[in-house]
């Protein structure tokens, strides 16, 4: 990716100071990417300067259509593909459009793999946009691609891939996929079970949170041993300006780099065609009405690039896409001049169109702009609370996931339209799919610095050092609700790789702790046995409360409880910073509760020393005004170390 390494403080060049520097960086961290495959010849997957493949590696590069072991090298060290579940449930693989191998035609897997562990490539850009030096977050990491997504991805194939990745010996697993909504308990979800098995094998597992935002309870992949990643913007945008016939101007986004569109008539809905014309569906637009004009299209039903294709084939000169909610300007590559507007501008355009006899507009394209207020959480990013495990805040963290430039297959168009004959080396796309591999790559970076850290320790380091103020010093904004983002949108905050490599304290969790957590959820022995075969919960575990899990955040639920009830949770922190250090607690108290921490000071005398504290949350009986949720934080402070845990109280 370009820009995100700089935005994340990783710096952009090999050898510069920052988390990428240091003689203790190992180059043998292996990232398993479970996705749509990989384009092995891409320059991002060259292996210049890499040492031989680690001897411990058991993976292979499987033969398949246009893929053989010779496609692998010291960067791409594994490539497997899984389609049994997809075919068994009626899926078809069209040999003319899809490779029955790990080779990627979708582009998604190539993009995510390069984001996590791609090599350094100078002058990377899309049509000159987002130009810069592209690198993966841990550019010396090895990559193993596990292709599970064809036109669809099935849980059977994903489980098979994850099990194989565990056996192969990956260190990090990144999965930018999932269900639309999550309503099944953890013991019935095989992605969750396989993630636990991976965790138990010492593998850090990150999943995307989903793109079903901004509604509450939409976050998926929420088990506590999973790092669940939300998506937010960077300080870079791709600006287009629309000027309406009445002189009003609005800023939107576009990846179009051609000449400006002069003032042209705009058409919409019935003035553009038949049923479906408001969404610019294929075949709905009347060429007689559309030719040479700018067509307004509402978002939804089909991809935006497909709307652009429909407008172009009907003879339209340009497309203006409206957003129903939020100010996300995450765009797609189009086959004609385009502009994508946020909800406020969209409403103004419709008002103008409704009140004007012969509406017109012109569009200019400004290209890449830097310096925006950022990060801001994307409206599309799925939100908590966590439906399955309400005692754990989800998502856990946010990372760049809007307008991310990364590697792209040589035979796939940037718009992903068959009619588009353009080919690019890099493409810009958006989603929690794009933020997830950022975090996975950073986890690989931390793993390379701290070989002995458990996946939970790495997760804790990433979460407790995440920041909540943007580059202008304001709370990170929420593009959906025009206010600051809550922990149900960004979890602990925005990932900060530099700080995560040296977090001071970590909240460690073992596989046994997670089993106790499952027992505390009152899962039956047979349900817990899905994770640990033959396990029987002890009476002590059954008496535990889920909130006692040593998680680096606090979700407190007063739902169906008396308002003045008290919850007390125990936490244990391990000193990984300065041997002799004293941490003092600082609490930002959520509305409607009182918070007591005991002790208020933790004095460590040596490294790896563990100290415990208790935190009590008591509902204020006089509280009648707080509805829904309130938020705060608990921070342990020592010198430059700030070990922060968000608190979410739900009523």
């Amino acid at each position: 990716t370009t820009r995100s390494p700089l935005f994340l403080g990783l710096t952009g060049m090999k050898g510069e100071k920052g988390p990428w520097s240091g003689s203790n960086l190992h180059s043998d961290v292996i990232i398993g990417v479970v996705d749509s495959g990989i384009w092995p010849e891409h320059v991002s997957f060259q292996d210049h300067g890499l040492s031989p493949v680690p001897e411990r590696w058991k993976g292979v590069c499987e033969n398949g259509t246009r893929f053989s072991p010779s496609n692998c090298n010291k960067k791409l060290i594994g490539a497997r593909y899984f389609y049994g579940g997809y075919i068994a449930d009626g899926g078809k693989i069209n040999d003319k459009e899809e490779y029955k191998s790990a080779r990627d035609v979708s582009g998604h897997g190539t993009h995510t793999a390069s984001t996590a562990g791609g090599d350094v490539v100078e002058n990377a850009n899309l049509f000159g946009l987002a130009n810069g030096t592209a690198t993966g977050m841990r550019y010396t990491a090895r990559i193993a691609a596990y292709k599970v997504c064809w036109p669809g991805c099935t849980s059977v194939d994903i489980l098979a891939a994850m099990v194989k990745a565990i056996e192969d010996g990956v260190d990090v697993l990144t999965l930018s996929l999932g269900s639309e909504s999550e309503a099944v308990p953890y013991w019935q979800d095989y992605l969750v079970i396989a993630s636990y098995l991976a965790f138990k094998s010492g593998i850090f597992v990150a999943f995307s949170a989903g793109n079903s935002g901004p509604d509450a309870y939409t976050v998926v992949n929420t088990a506590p041993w999973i790092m669940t990643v939300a998506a937010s913007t960077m300080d870079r945008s791709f600006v287009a300006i629309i000027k309406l016939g009445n002189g009003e101007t609005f800023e939107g986004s576009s990846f179009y780099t051609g000449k400006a569109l002069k003032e042209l008539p705009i058409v919409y809905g019935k003035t553009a065609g038949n049923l479906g014309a408001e969404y610019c569906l294929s075949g709905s637009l009347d060429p007689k009405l559309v030719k040479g004009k700018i067509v307004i299209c509402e978002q939804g039903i089909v991809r935006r690039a497909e709307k652009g294709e429909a407008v172009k084939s009907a003879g339209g000169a340009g497309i203006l896409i409206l957003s129903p909610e939020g100010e996300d300007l995450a765009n797609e590559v189009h086959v004609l001049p385009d502009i994508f507007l946020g909800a406020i501008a969209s409403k103004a355009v419709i008002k103008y169109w409704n009140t004007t006899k012969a509406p017109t507009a012109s569009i200019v394209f400004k290209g890449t702009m830097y310096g925006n207020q950022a990060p801001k959480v994307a409206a599309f990013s799925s939100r908590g609370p966590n439906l399955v495990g309400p005692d754990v805040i989800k998502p856990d963290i946010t990372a760049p996931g809007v307008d991310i430039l990364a590697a792209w297959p040589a035979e796939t168009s940037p718009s992903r339209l068959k009619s588009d004959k353009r080919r690019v080396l890099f493409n810009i796309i958006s989603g929690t799919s794009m933020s997830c591999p950022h975090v996975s790559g950073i986890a690989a970076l931390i793993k390379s610095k701290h070989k002995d850290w458990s996946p939970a320790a790495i997760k804790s380091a990433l979460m407790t050092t995440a920041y909540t103020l943007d580059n202008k010093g304001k709370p990170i904004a929420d593009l959906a609700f025009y206010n600051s983002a809550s922990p149900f949108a960004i979890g602990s905050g925005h990932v900060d790789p530099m700080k995560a490599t040296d977090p001071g304290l970590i909240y460690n969790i073992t596989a046994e702790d997670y089993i106790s957590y499952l027992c505390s959820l009152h899962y039956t022995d047979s349900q817990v046995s899905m994770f640990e075969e033959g396990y029987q919960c002890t009476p002590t575990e059954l008496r535990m409360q889920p909130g006692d899990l040593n998680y680096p955040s606090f979700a407190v639920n007063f739902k169906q409880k008396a308002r003045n009830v008290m919850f007390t949770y125990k936490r244990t922190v391990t000193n990984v910073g300065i041997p002799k250090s004293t941490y003092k607690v600082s609490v930002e108290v959520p509305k409607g509760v009182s918070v007591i921490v005991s002790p208020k000071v933790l004095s460590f005398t040596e490294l790896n020393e563990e100290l415990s504290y208790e935190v009590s949350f008591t509902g204020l009986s006089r509280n009648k005004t707080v509805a829904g949720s309130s938020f705060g934080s608990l921070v342990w402070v020592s010198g430059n170390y700030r070990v922060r845990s968000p608190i979410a109280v739900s009523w």
Partner: protein
Amino acid sequence: ASADEQTYIVRMDKTRITNTYSSLVSSTKPWHQAVLDSLIDVSSMEATPPELLYSYETALSGFAAKLSSKQLESLKNMDGFMSAVPNKMLSLH
């Protein structure tokens, strides 16, 4: 028959399976296949025998297979059966 079939991830207690059904398991036939083959009597009236898609040995004991509802019921009655979760379609994010 096709409408009656579904793909499942099946978990089984390997120790109990191999103990209880030792006669089914041989050096040439993995226990997963032996279990599915034992369902053939039930499936003889049906269009397709159970289809083994993946077998799991190390991280967990089980397999993925395409089963009819009758085959699933027979499987559930076997000593050592733990769970059968239907395959589901997911999407890239």
